[in-house]
């Protein structure tokens, strides 16, 4: 028994020793033998033993204290914004532009450009009050090159606008004048001072302009991957079918050369290869934009248009021509997400800044205004996402959340309350029933009226005063309106609280659109060769009446500050036009139709639409085709879009207990 025990103890002991020797021996062996040469790890920058003892590159106090010099004068002739532009003149009301009148007879183009500048909100007739003096230098053919103007003053605060490159020889020293010209070479361009314009073809439309060619978001199947510019103005596509490649994750072989096709003017391909050497290629660049063909610029020697504000990396690929093969390979492998984004951006930029001469000129002025504004300029987001900086005014706000367009990008939401703005008109009788219905909504923050209430009604909850009382001022950006949403009403509108509530909830999903109850639609009148519109009930609509509609407060600012004077006077003279004008404006911004929500049945045939009521103010009953045609002419195109749907509550008129429904009174007979 004992020996067994002893044996087992010894056994355990020796086993442990063995283990010890084995393990320890291995370790010792590993220490003793040099390691086998392993695959060489990259030899990095050495870790110095005395790294901590190294001196810093700058010793505190080492900096010279009295060496600062007085500001230096700019180097010979070169200018930058700070040294050559005097912003003190622009202090009062921002950018005011004076245009030198042309001496002698001028061409039609010249006249139209002048008109479009005069229409803009920047224009002034007095050279003394202007902070920017604009010198048009347009057509060389007519030989009307401008001579040195009167207020030249070494070119200070001058902008020389050259729409077509080298149209005029430099007849005088530019001095401190800024130059806005088409595709300036990179070397002569003074960044932050000059403005790079697009290279416009002679026949570029002055106003409105052709919309982008893109009809669908993603490239069509079977469309060529690449289009190359041809010597004589056309495009040549090469290697079709390969654009299909990224969409299903597997690639076919390029069908090889020979499959080339000739196209007339606009390229039909996913990418357009544009050489960077000749500035003429810049006109191809614009073609590609319009066609929704992603420009691939090979080492451009010219400055891209409005590069100061437009982030071209979102719409084009600017690559090194020497790496052409790698670029082509990269294009083939580009992810669908990237292709989608680039394509859409080309279209947005074309529509927002390039499709007409007027847009190009307004963009130029907007760029200069942004420089003057400094911190209150457009943030980059406003320039580079729809609807673009010409339609998102930085005078309204510089915070993207305040606009109706950027909630997604900002991760924000429109405010949960609205202000009702009731236009009472001359009769002055406050519509008590309507006020009660509107103020009864849980989302209602305030009720204002134009003109202000008679004192008797002041006691009601949520009622505050808004000043001003002219009809035109209906769309004035009143500072008393503090909410994002405005419910525009008319004394004769009749709404229930349910309707208001539901319409507002819908508006919150579509804050950039107008959400209305009553609609009308436009149509092309073959007989008269013009546009017409009707308030009759049809299967589709393209406008909502502002006598009962929700929209974003921003549209008041846009209406008042961005519309040309001519249009606002038109609306002033023919008040039926105001509705149409507002709808045009919103549609031009959103490029989408408005939204219709259900409107109580019994009233639909009642008051508002019946002509000749007791106090018929100016209404839409007698649509005036003149109005819509004039507005369309001023816009240069027809922005209105038609919709065939109405947004109803989820259980609207469903055969289910009314107790389950949230918006019950919407369905009451």
């Amino acid at each position, binding site marked *: 028994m*004992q020996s067994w*025990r002893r044996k087992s103890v010894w056994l355990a*002991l020796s086993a*442990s020793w063995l283990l*010890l020797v084995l*393990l*320890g021996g291995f*370790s010792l062996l590993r220490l003793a033998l040099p*390691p086998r040469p392993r695959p*060489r790890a990259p*030899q990095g*920058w*050495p*870790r110095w*033993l*005395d790294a901590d003892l*190294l*001196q*810093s*590159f*700058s010793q505190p*106090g080492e*900096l010279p204290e009295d*060496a600062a010099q007085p*500001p230096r004068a700019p180097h010979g002739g070169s200018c*930058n914004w*700070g040294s050559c532009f005097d*912003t003190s003149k622009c202090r009062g009301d921002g950018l005011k532009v004076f245009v030198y009148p042309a001496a002698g007879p001028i061409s039609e183009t010249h006249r139209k450009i002048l008109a479009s500048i005069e229409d803009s909100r920047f224009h002034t007739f007095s050279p003394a009050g202007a902070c920017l003096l604009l010198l048009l230098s347009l057509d060389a053919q007519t030989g009307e090159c401008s001579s040195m103007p009167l207020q030249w003053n070494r070119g200070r605060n001058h902008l020389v606008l050259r729409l077509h490159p080298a149209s005029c020889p430099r007849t005088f020293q530019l001095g401190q004048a800024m130059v806005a010209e088409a595709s300036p070479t*990179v070397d002569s361009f003074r960044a932050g001072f000059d403005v790079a314009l697009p290279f416009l073809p002679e026949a570029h439309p002055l106003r409105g302009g052709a919309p982008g060619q893109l*009809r*669908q*978001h993603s490239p069509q199947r*079977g469309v060529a991957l690449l289009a190359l510019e041809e010597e004589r103005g056309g495009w040549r596509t090469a290697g079709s079918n390969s654009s299909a490649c990224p969409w*299903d*994750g597997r690639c076919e072989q390029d069908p090889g050369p020979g499959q080339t096709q000739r196209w007339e003017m606009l390229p039909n391909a996913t990418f357009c290869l544009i050489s960077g050497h000749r500035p003429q290629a810049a006109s191809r660049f614009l073609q590609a934009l319009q066609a929704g063909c992603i420009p691939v610029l090979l*080492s451009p020697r010219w400055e891209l248009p409005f590069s100061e504000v437009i982030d071209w990396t979102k719409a084009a*690929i600017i*690559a*090194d021509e020497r*790496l052409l093969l790698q670029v082509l390979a*990269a294009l083939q492998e580009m992810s669908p997400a990237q292709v989608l*984004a680039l394509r859409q951006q080309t279209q947005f930029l074309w529509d927002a800044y390039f499709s007409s001469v007027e847009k190009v000129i307004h963009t130029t002025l907007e760029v200069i205004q942004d420089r003057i504004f*400094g*911190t209150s*300029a457009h*943030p980059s987001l406003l320039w580079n*996402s729809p609807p673009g900086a010409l339609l998102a005014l930085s005078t309204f706000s510089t*915070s993207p959340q305040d606009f109706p367009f950027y909630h997604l990008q900002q991760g924000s939401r429109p405010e949960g309350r609205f202000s009702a703005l009731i236009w009472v008109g001359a009769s002055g009788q406050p519509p008590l029933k309507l006020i009660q219905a509107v103020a009864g909504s849980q989302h209602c923050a305030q009720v204002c009226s134009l003109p202000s209430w008679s004192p008797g009604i002041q006691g009601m909850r949520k009622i505050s005063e808004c000043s001003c009382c002219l009809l035109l001022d209906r769309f004035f950006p009143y500072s008393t309106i503090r909410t994002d949403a405005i419910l525009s009403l008319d004394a004769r509108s009749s709404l229930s609280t349910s309707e208001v509530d539901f319409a507002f909830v*819908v508006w919150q999903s579509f804050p950039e659109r107008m959400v209305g109850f009553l609609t009308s639609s436009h149509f092309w009148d073959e007989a008269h060769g013009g546009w017409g519109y009707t308030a009759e009930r049809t299967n589709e609509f393209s406008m909502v009446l502002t006598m009962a509609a929700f929209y974003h407060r921003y549209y008041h600012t846009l209406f008042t500050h961005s519309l040309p004077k001519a249009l606002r006077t038109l609306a002033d003279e023919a008040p039926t036009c105001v509705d149409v004008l507002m709808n045009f404006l919103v549609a031009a911004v959103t490029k*989408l139709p408005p939204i219709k929500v259900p409107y109580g*049945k019994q009233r639909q045939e009642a008051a508002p639409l019946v002509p000749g009521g007791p106090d018929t103010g100016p209404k839409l009953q007698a649509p005036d085709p003149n109005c819509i045609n004039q507005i369309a002419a001023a816009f240069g195109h027809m922005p209105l879009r038609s919709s065939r*749907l*109405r*947004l*109803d*509550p*989820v259980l*609207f008129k469903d*055969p289910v207990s009314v107790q*389950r429904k949230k918006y019950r009174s919407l369905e009451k007979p």
Partner: protein
Amino acid sequence: MCASVKYNIRGPALIPRMKTKHRIYYITLFSIVLLGLIATGMFQFWPHSIESSNDWNVEKRSVRDVPVVRLPADSPIPERGDLSCRMHTCFDVYRCGFNPKNKIKVYIYALKKYVDDFGVPVSNTISREYNELLTAISDSDYYTDDISRACLFVPSIDVLNQNTLRIKETAQALAQLSRWDRGTNHLLFNMLPGGPPDYNTALDVPRDRALLAGGGFSTWTYRQGYDVSIPVYSPLSAEVDLPEKGPGPRRYFLLSSQVGLHPEYREDVEALQVKHGESVLVLDKCTNLSEGVLSVRKRCHKHQVFDYPQVLQEATFCVVLRGAQLGQAVLSDVLQAGCVPVVIADSYILPFSEVLDWKRASVVVPEEKMSDVYSILQSIPQRQIEEMQRQARWFWEAYFQSIKAIALATLQIINDRIYPYAAISYEEWNDPPAVKWGSVSNPLFLPLIPPQSQGFTAIVLTYDRVESLFRVITEVSKVPSLSKLLVVWNNQNKNPPEDSLWPKIRVPLKVVRTAENKLSNRFFPYDEIETEAVLAIDDDIIMLTSDELQFGYEVWREFPDRLVGYPGRLHLWDHEMNKWKYESEWTNEVSMVLTGAAFYHKYFNYLYTYKMPGDIKNWVDAHMNCEDIAMNFLVANVTGKAVIKVTPRKKFKCPECTAIDGLSLDQTHMVERSECINKFASVFGTMPLKVVEHRADPVLYKDDFPEKLKSFPNIGSL
């Protein structure tokens, strides 16, 4: 008590009747063995100091031991910098050509000590910061030690501070680098350029075509698109830990903290203080500090002593004036404090201005407007100020905080120039993380109503219900806008019926056979889909009228970035169970639509198949359920928008379904669907579904209007 007794009895029993001598002997032996074992074990598993450190090959050396290179007085000097250099003229891009990962390769020359003919060193061998910088590059993905593969070369000659080096000799040292070749593709880092008396704004060392990453460029010396403007690193960044201070109004409106201002400027800022009183604070060097107090860390106003840089956190705006050099380290301190820099230095190129949007984080005021600074700043709305404060701090954290951040941002900028199609976007450079998380960038952001003429492609997923399938095909083919019909035959054991048996319809009909019976096959981006609009439809959906489908397509055209479907469903938060619940009852809200019949953009098929997060796709295929919920999640997550439910349709009644006992099946069904929602929400890390209270009906739906005049009279029932 009990246990201890037991133990006492057992103890002696283990080694019984042994003599005390023996016992001691055994115990010692055991302990030695045990100790040995423990020690060996420790040795085995302890992180080995010798082996585990990566630089097994790197011998530990001192900077003082680096090889010495003697530069003859007549060795060549490079040309002065060429101001007209651009990437396409002076940079040899072929050296970067062959990299498949779109990442440039950077080589660092070995450290040498350069001396002139008399043995006098040319400069300090290397500064702490430059050593950090080279270490950061060496540790990054850009680094290569193979000189023949490198696209960019970084000399180890330290030119961070021009005042610590001899210009001519340093230039000679550069020129003798093995791959110098007129400086092509060489990158020099310099933070403090120029020297007395006129302080050039770029490094004075002749450097030919070398790129310069410089702090303090002016518009006259900066080669746009070629050089990189970098910050002047502030050593205080590493020394002082300033916790982030929330945005909002602070004690001082405007603060000037720089010492060594030019007297003219000092007069100007002091005039501001006189004019605006308490809200402006102008600090200067302290004159009467006691011994041992670091003067760098103190600032004084009259006799008041302030801690620097802590005092910067007390101000909303901080002045950054030019000194002898345009670039000032104080900019970094100011950003760190979340104070909005007011940069008054004409023609100064702000750090990383090629990619950073400084309008969002700073105010630039021309020098001649200095007297107006206060009113300019006051015109900025409070909300914008707060955004700027946040942005300032974020810029510091991302691009100023350390030498490493500066080095990597510089290389990234150069990398983006060479591989523009793989470049980092404006948003990635500029949006602080909080904005990046909250924002959604809709892949179909362009407002566009696709032309009706394009039509849609119907995709019918089927297994073997041929009869019902044929009925669906016949019904769907009546829809005017249908342009193609695709049948996805998901049954591998059975062949689809012969061509002659299929219904004859007016549009092309294609049958695709799948390799495996998976639900995900319905969302595969088939080559055959030529239209943008896709109608996914089950092989038993025969109750939808032609008007209903056509109307659905019309609605999709107005909302091409959304899922447009018929029966709507809702997700709800179950407060008792603390999780999501699937709801199909009569509700006033919708957050999902069933894809038994739904229109959507074909791009979502690509996303579903290739970009679905996590293991959702496998989960769906394994459970043979919830592919529609997954699609709803995907679309809502990527677009940030809600679904559109069209028409009153509430369920898809199919003849087969009614036959089965509804209730219990329904119960398990609901549980399963709820489980899916919870699973997907956890994979997405958020609940992307959006709840809305509306559905789309035709304009005149249920209006008192002659039916025959309505576009879509037959909109169907529930």
